């Protein structure tokens, strides 16, 4: 069975906090060694289509994703089977963001690319780094109207589920949690979590590196989901 090298938490130049070099050109240059990724911008899905299409030329498959900021300021990764579903969900999230106006000089530029990967325009509103008016429970319910995975990001860190909410909300069935190192993995197991993913949360080109390897038949959403549920996502620890 083939082995794929992956990283499922990657920001593009559209995320205000990502480096302005996170353009499609840089992805084409830096993604060597990776062949399966997810584009997970903050509270938007507008770049999934462009990047997925352009990355086909170097045989990198893209799982459609988003990193949502809930009302509680918890960051959640949501992954979708279909780009169309991700884009619809992304619109709902963008429309729910609580900061419409913002100062890019202070908070970072949101750069939108055209279908060829070139600069299209500065995306001025809403501020994609702001939080949704929806609670984590509401976002969960909306996400589950699609074939999707709901995975809280960096749970023990800033904007993490455990940091902000103390423990997992009782009514949510979390598909997995994202953790960063062996110590966090042990801590998460003690809290009762069973499924995990390990990502670099790339905001800079040098973070476009494999963080997991997965042995599976094909790079599809169903295989991605199965690998998580069957605990076949093998971490490649960086630290």
């Amino acid at each position, binding site marked *: 069975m083939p082995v794929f090298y992956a990283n499922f938490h990657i920001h593009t130049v559209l995320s205000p906090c990502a480096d302005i070099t996170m353009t499609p050109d840089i992805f084409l240059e830096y993604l060597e060694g990776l062949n399966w990724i997810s584009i997970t911008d903050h509270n938007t899905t507008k770049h999934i289509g462009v990047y997925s299409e352009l990355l086909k030329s170097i045989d990198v498959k893209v799982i459609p994703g988003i990193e949502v900021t809930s009302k509680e300021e918890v960051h959640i990764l949501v992954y979708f089977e279909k780009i169309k579903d991700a884009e619809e969900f992304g619109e709902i999230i963008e429309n729910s963001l609580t900061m419409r106006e913002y100062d890019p000089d202070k908070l970072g530029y949101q750069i939108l690319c055209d279908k060829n990967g070139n600069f299209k325009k500065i995306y001025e509103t809403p501020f994609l780094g702001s939080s949704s008016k929806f*609670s984590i*429970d509401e976002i969960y319910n909306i996400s589950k109207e699609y074939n999707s995975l709901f995975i809280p990001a960096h749970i023990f860190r800033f904007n993490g589920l455990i940091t902000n*909410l103390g423990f997992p909300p009782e009514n949510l069935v979390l598909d997995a949690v994202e953790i960063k190192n062996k110590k966090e993995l042990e801590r998460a197991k003690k809290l009762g979590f069973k499924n995990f993913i390990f990502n670099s949360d790339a905001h800079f080109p040098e973070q476009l590196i494999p963080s997991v390897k997965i042995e599976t038949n094909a790079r599809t959403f169903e295989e991605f989901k199965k690998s998580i549920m069957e605990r076949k996502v093998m971490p490649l620890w960086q630290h």
Partner: protein
Amino acid sequence: MKISELIKDKNFEKVYIVDDAINIKNGYIGDLLSEIMRNAPGESVWLTHQTHPNIIAVASIVEINTIIIPEGFEFESETIKKAKENNINLLKSRCNIFKAAGIIYTKLIEE
């Protein structure tokens, strides 16, 4: 300070009160529930912007008896339901969190 002191003050509005004779001995402020679990004192009032039902479980664990949210925020209905089940008082302030804390702090040290 009895919680009835706070309810009398025009800057606060009751959402759910278990017993207005409950005593508040201390206070704490914060939005990170993991931090509240580590450091908040018992028999206290907690000022926060978080309105998720998890705040009730956290309050129960550290024996916070009253949660107050500032102007512009609303408790979720599930949170109010859980407050009733767990005997936690809920108040809303008509002020921002800094001013609300100042009013409560002043009342507590005057005692």
